């Protein structure tokens, strides 16, 4: 009999295989993950809610379907967890904010409906930065998520709970949301694969809105293959999200089963990311340039390219996302949604006091900046100027991708930050965001792939960005790399005992 440690170290594809051939049941797998959560969550602070009874009931139902030969999908019975800004009917959805501390979701998000249709088991909700605003989960009502590789460090953000959960083997896969790097960055810090699909690939219906022209839901998994499995479940057009598109919902496994070679593939290295003035820390520069040589050893051709607008991307992102947040978060006024102050004499006071008490400092900062952007007339801050930079970046990336198979760039310029140091200043945070925002600003798909570790084992991700319709190809190329250079056995926090055979053969 497998122990929970062994089961929780298995990649998703291995769990599917063992469910399919009867070696494991969904109850065994779900029970193992609940044990893992019980053993580790108090240290990591990744889950904010665990649905233990409901998860076991869903697992039993899944096992019954399999016994009857009526499995709903290859992932029927596989447990997973979701960020706490995705609505699950009749469960609280707090966005890690006092404002929504008691909010019960009246319906399922479309992605939750898709997971249920595939028979997946929902383990619970994951910690995050308040309203997804932040990059370390330090703005969470519940306190920061700790990095499984080093508990003194942040797991990244805003989907820090999703990254830590997968890295620590507390779920085989998780959903996060990415507005300006919120899936890619925690994936990099936690040593897991994170996917930001092209804008329109996954419905955002039931995702609490932050910046509507940027938000996108994406999976965090142990491997690119696992991520393709999850993408096949969650992608697709939805009449409830006018930005979702059917043409982007292709078979993400198609190129996995006929693995692509990296031989002769051309990858652009934007000089704005790799040159000394880019702000890359020496340890990340060293780790990732060694990784680049491994891409070359597989036959990849690396060419220098330029995305001049990248140097302004983080500021453009800050202005655009803050403006859209100021609009989206206007609904939290204590009337229909959220915390209502007990201290008011008139309606205006009720609005101001409720929002003043309900929102944390980072949300307030962005609302104030957003107001300055939207106010326009007397403000020097220009929404249109930021939008011009966004369009220019899209044009530059599209031009480069006409002659490249993808762009290789750092995801984050530094290792995971310490939770014991002083908080970063705003400009410093923007510099940290600069490599995470291009995918969000351009709407192009990107993957964060673990490619290097520092001497103490802290992971670093390589960002791989491509054309809008090319996420299956990006995942296949990432798969080619990770098959050739898997992270060393025993160095991952979730290598809890499983040493089994081929990791990716379903």
């Amino acid at each position, binding site marked *: 009999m497998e122990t929970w440690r062994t089961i929780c170290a298995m990649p998703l594809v291995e769990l599917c295989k063992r469910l399919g051939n009867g070696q494991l049941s969904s109850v065994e797998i779900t029970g193992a993950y609940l044990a893992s959560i019980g053993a580790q969550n108090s240290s990591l602070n990744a889950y904010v809610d665990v649905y233990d009874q409901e998860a076991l009931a869903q697992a039993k139902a899944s096992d019954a379907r399999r016994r009857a030969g009526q499995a709903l999908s290859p992932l029927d019975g596989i447990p997973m967890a979701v960020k706490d800004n995705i609505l699950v009917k009749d469960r609280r959805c707090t966005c890690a904010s006092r404002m929504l501390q008691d909010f019960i979701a009246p319906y399922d998000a479309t992605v939750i409906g898709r997971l249920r249709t595939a028979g997946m088991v929902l383990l619970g909700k994951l910690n995050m930065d308040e309203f997804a605003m932040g990059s370390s989960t330090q703005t969470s009502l519940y306190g920061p998520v700790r990095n499984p590789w080093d508990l003194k460090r942040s797991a990244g953000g805003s989907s820090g709970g999703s990254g830590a959960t997968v890295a620590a083997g507390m779920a085989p896969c998780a959903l996060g949301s990415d507005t300006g790097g919120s899936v890619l960055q925690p994936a990099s810090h936690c040593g897991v694969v994170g996917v930001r699909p092209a*804008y329109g690939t996954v419905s955002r219906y039931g995702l609490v809105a932050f910046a509507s022209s940027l938000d996108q839901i994406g999976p965090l998994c142990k491997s690119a293959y696992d991520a393709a499995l999850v993408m096949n479940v969650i992608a697709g057009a939805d009449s409830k999200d006018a*930005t979702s598109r059917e043409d982007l919902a292709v078979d993400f496994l198609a190129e996995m089963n006929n693995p692509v070679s990296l031989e002769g593939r051309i990858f652009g290295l934007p000089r704005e990311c790799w040159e000394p003035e880019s702000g890359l820390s020496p340890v990340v520069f060293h780790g990732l340039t060694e990784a680049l040589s491994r891409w070359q050893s597989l036959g990849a051709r690396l060419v220098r390219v330029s995305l001049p607008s990248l140097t302004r991307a983080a500021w453009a992102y800050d202005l655009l996302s803050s403006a859209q947040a100021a609009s989206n978060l206007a609904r939290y006024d204590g009337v229909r949604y959220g915390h209502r102050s007990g201290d008011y004499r008139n309606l205006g006071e009720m609005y101001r006091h409720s929002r003043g008490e309900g929102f944390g400092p980072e949300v307030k*900062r962005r609302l104030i*900046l957003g107001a300055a952007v*939207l*106010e326009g007339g007397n403000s020097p801050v220009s929404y249109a100027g930021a939008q011009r930079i966004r369009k220019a970046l*899209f044009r530059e990336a599209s031009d480069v991708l006409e002659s490249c198979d993808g762009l290789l760039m750092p995801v984050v310029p530094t290792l995971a930050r310490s939770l014991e140091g002083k908080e970063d200043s*705003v400009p410093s945070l923007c510099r940290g965001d600069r490599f995470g925002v291009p995918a969000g600003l351009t709407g192009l798909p990107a993957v964060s792939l673990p490619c290097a570790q520092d001497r103490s084992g802290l992971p670093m991700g390589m960002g791989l960005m491509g054309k809008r319709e090319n996420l299956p190809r990006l995942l296949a190329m990432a798969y080619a790399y990770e098959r050739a250079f898997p992270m060393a056995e025993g160095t991952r926090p979730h290598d809890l005992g499983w040493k089994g055979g081929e990791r990716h053969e379903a």
Partner: protein
Amino acid sequence: MKREQGEILEAMASLVMLELTSREAEVLGRELEAALGAVPRVEGCADGEDCPDPEGISGNEALQAQEAAEPIREDSPGSSLPLSQVLRNAPGVHGPFITLPRVLE
């Protein structure tokens, strides 16, 4: 906090309906000033220094960029949601109407 900076902050807080403590006003005032101070970098296009020329993009390219960044499809008019479905998601119902919580006691 400078007077002008304080006035700007007060106006912005009023726009987004936020009551700020004096400590928050101090911190946010500094951060807003820092953000506004960085605007020339964002607006570098106007400075003419090493910046893209988005205005030089052709009409089609600009349209493609816009569509890629905001791929909104055409509206396809359909029938309204059934009243029962609308009311199912309401916080409170009185006959065919949605009821809202009382705001003023």
